[in-house]
């Protein structure tokens, strides 16, 4: 066993791949990949994403202490690879998906059930070497829970509310949930396949629609990955405007989430109140930037919007008015014992689990994990801005609400900093035609979005892989609900607000 080797020291035993930016990519042979898998059980390196190609598997890693980031790749011409999920449960679903999409078999993984492939595509391994699917239905075997008086409650994929589709299988004893098992993949759209072969700007539109609520974050991630691959520096003003849009998106989503969590605790006035505040923000987005959700406003090379003095003044006024209304909402939350009674102590995620699954965003931060891509690795303009990352240890619904509240305050403050210090200049740079590979890590309102891309000399996307933070949060929801009552599930679920679309891809 190796001693305290750092991530980069370890990976440098592989072959460095040229033209991969900003962080290196190393190819590991069988031995190297096995050693990496084994390191997973002793190191605190985090898996940030894992994906495939027809004959290669990639994993994006971060050395937790140093913050170093790198991609490890493993060519697997024989169609199988040693599964990291044996040592890191966070990778299990990723590797099941790799098998479904690229046909690479994760060796040693106990759970070999398909994940995204429900048997409806007409082909198997659509992104690897597709083969006509011979028909017949997949019967999905849910894990069993046995005992006296246990019963099952199947829910979904179509839910009662206006939410995305997914299936939840509850095993309950009376009102208490003994086990929840999720089954996802219903909204799998084949996004990685759609992006391949597309011109960069067309692929950017698809990237913006991986998860509509995080459209700005995904657009920034795609743009940053492309710019890294091209070795392109964009004007400072573009960075600042991107951050402005990203923080507006964060505030809008958090406002809605806080309202919706309270609504699921039967406190509807909060949803109405937060909804009205959010509407102010979306309405201003439409007026100033031409799209309520800010889709396609961030583009590879920069941004497609700008702000003049009048817009800055309006945005500053918007921040002030949201802050005022938000404060009222928070004091209502803080002083309503019947509401706090529902959120406090409900749906606890222990910090060890949050760490083990590498959960980012408010789910991680409510359970002691202080990761935030804006700080580590960090990207412009955040290195120039003054902000903190709120962390709590309780891990319950209440903590996830409070983290969001704190993040709204911080984001409003960031927006003011950005507006008052916005540098002048151009807002975009032309894209050169160059081949290369790039990767980016961007903080969405939900957590860390990773995006990897390979470009051809002809200015096309050869392959792209977007990774949603929900991958590492969904499994924790299963743990959070255990021992809670069924009636608290909507509350727990909303406090996570994982993306189905982003996860299912």
């Amino acid at each position, binding site marked *: 066993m190796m001693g305290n080797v750092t991530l980069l020291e370890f990976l440098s035993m592989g072959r460095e791949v040229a033209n991969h930016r900003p962080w290196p990519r190393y190819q590991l042979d069988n031995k190297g990949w096995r050693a990496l898998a084994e390191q997973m059980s002793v190191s605190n390196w985090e898996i940030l994403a894992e994906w495939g190609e027809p004959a290669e598997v990639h994993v994006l890693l971060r050395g937790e202490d140093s913050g170093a980031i790198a991609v490890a790749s493993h060519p697997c011409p024989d169609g199988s690879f040693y599964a990291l999920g044996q040592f890191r449960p966070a990778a299990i679903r990723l590797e099941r998906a790799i098998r479904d999409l690229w046909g690479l078999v994760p060796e040693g993984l106990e759970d070999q059930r398909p994940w995204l492939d429900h048997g409806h*595509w007409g082909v198997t391994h659509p992104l690897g070497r597709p083969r006509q699917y011979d028909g017949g239905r997949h019967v999905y075997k849910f894990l069993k829970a046995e005992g006296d008086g246990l019963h099952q409650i199947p829910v979904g994929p179509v839910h*009662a509310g206006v939410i995305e589709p997914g299936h939840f299988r509850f095993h309950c004893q009376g009102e208490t949930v003994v086990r929840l098992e999720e089954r996802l993949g219903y909204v799998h759209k084949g996004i990685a396949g759609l992006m391949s072969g597309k011109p960069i700007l067309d692929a950017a539109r698809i990237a913006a629609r991986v998860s509509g609520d995080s459209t700005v974050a995904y657009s920034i991630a795609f743009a940053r990955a492309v710019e890294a691959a091209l070795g392109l520096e964009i004007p400072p003003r573009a960075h600042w405007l991107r951050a402005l849009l990203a923080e507006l998106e964060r505030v809008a989503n958090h406002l809605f989430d806080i309202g919706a969590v309270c609504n699921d605790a039967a406190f509807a006035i909060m949803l109405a109140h937060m909804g009205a505040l959010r509407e102010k923000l979306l309405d201003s987005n439409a007026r100033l930037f031409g799209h309520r959700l800010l889709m396609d406003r961030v583009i590879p090379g920069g941004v497609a919007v700008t702000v003049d003095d009048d817009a800055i003044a309006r945005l500053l006024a918007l921040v002030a008015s949201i802050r005022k209304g938000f404060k009222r909402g928070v004091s209502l939350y803080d002083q309503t014992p019947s509401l706090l009674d529902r959120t406090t102590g409900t749906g606890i995620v222990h910090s060890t689990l949050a760490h083990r699954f590498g959960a980012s965003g408010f789910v991680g931060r409510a359970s002691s994990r202080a990761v935030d891509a804006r700080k580590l690795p960090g990207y412009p303009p955040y290195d120039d801005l003054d902000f903190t990352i709120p962390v709590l240890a309780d891990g319950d619904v209440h903590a996830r609400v409070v983290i969001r509240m704190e993040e709204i305050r911080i984001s409003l403050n960031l927006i003011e900093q950005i507006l008052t210090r916005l540098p002048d200049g151009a807002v975009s740079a032309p894209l050169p035609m160059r081949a290369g590979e790039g990767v980016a890590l961007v903080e969405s309102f939900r957590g860390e979005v990773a995006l990897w891309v390979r470009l051809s000399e002809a200015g096309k996307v050869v392959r792209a892989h977007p990774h949603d933070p929900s991958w590492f949060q969904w499994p924790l929801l299963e743990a959070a609900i255990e021992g809670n009552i069924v009636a608290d599930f909507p509350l727990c679920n909303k406090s996570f607000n994982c993306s189905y679309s982003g996860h299912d891809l």
Partner: protein
Amino acid sequence: MIPPIAKMLARHLIKGPHTAKDAVTPSERALRELAESLGITAQVKLGRSLAIREIDAGSCNGCELEIHAVNHPVYDLERFGIKFVASPRHADVLLVTGPVSWNMAEALRRTVEATPEPRWVVAMGDCAIDGGCFKGSYAVAGGAAAIVPVDMTIPGCPPTPVDILSGLLALLEAVEG
């Protein structure tokens, strides 16, 4: 001390509702579309109310965000007698969003079948109309019409709350005659 909820309620009583002042009119485009797809025979008396069951057949969740927005106090869909219901059994209208992913095709078909007649299917958003930017994927069947008959569309990516309102008002008008 006055509890915050009392303050908030009092403030709203004094300041009046958040509801958007601009009148929303039924969409002309949707009315023309409906005249073609429904004909005159479809008119029934629903007492000027519509119950909608939303079904996400593969959306990016952007369309859902705007559906939530029409339910918020600013657009306040319910003032028109239109409301979202939990079960297709209670619904008159199925509002389909997203391209239909093959993994959702069966669920969409069954949800439509579970809705009693007369029922209307509305494809909301560019994806539900023809697959949008997801068309051509191995995992996508196409727009909603690839799987179920569609009576009306609401274009946009996503359609704005006003688009959604005026589309639904057109439907209300058309089916009420």
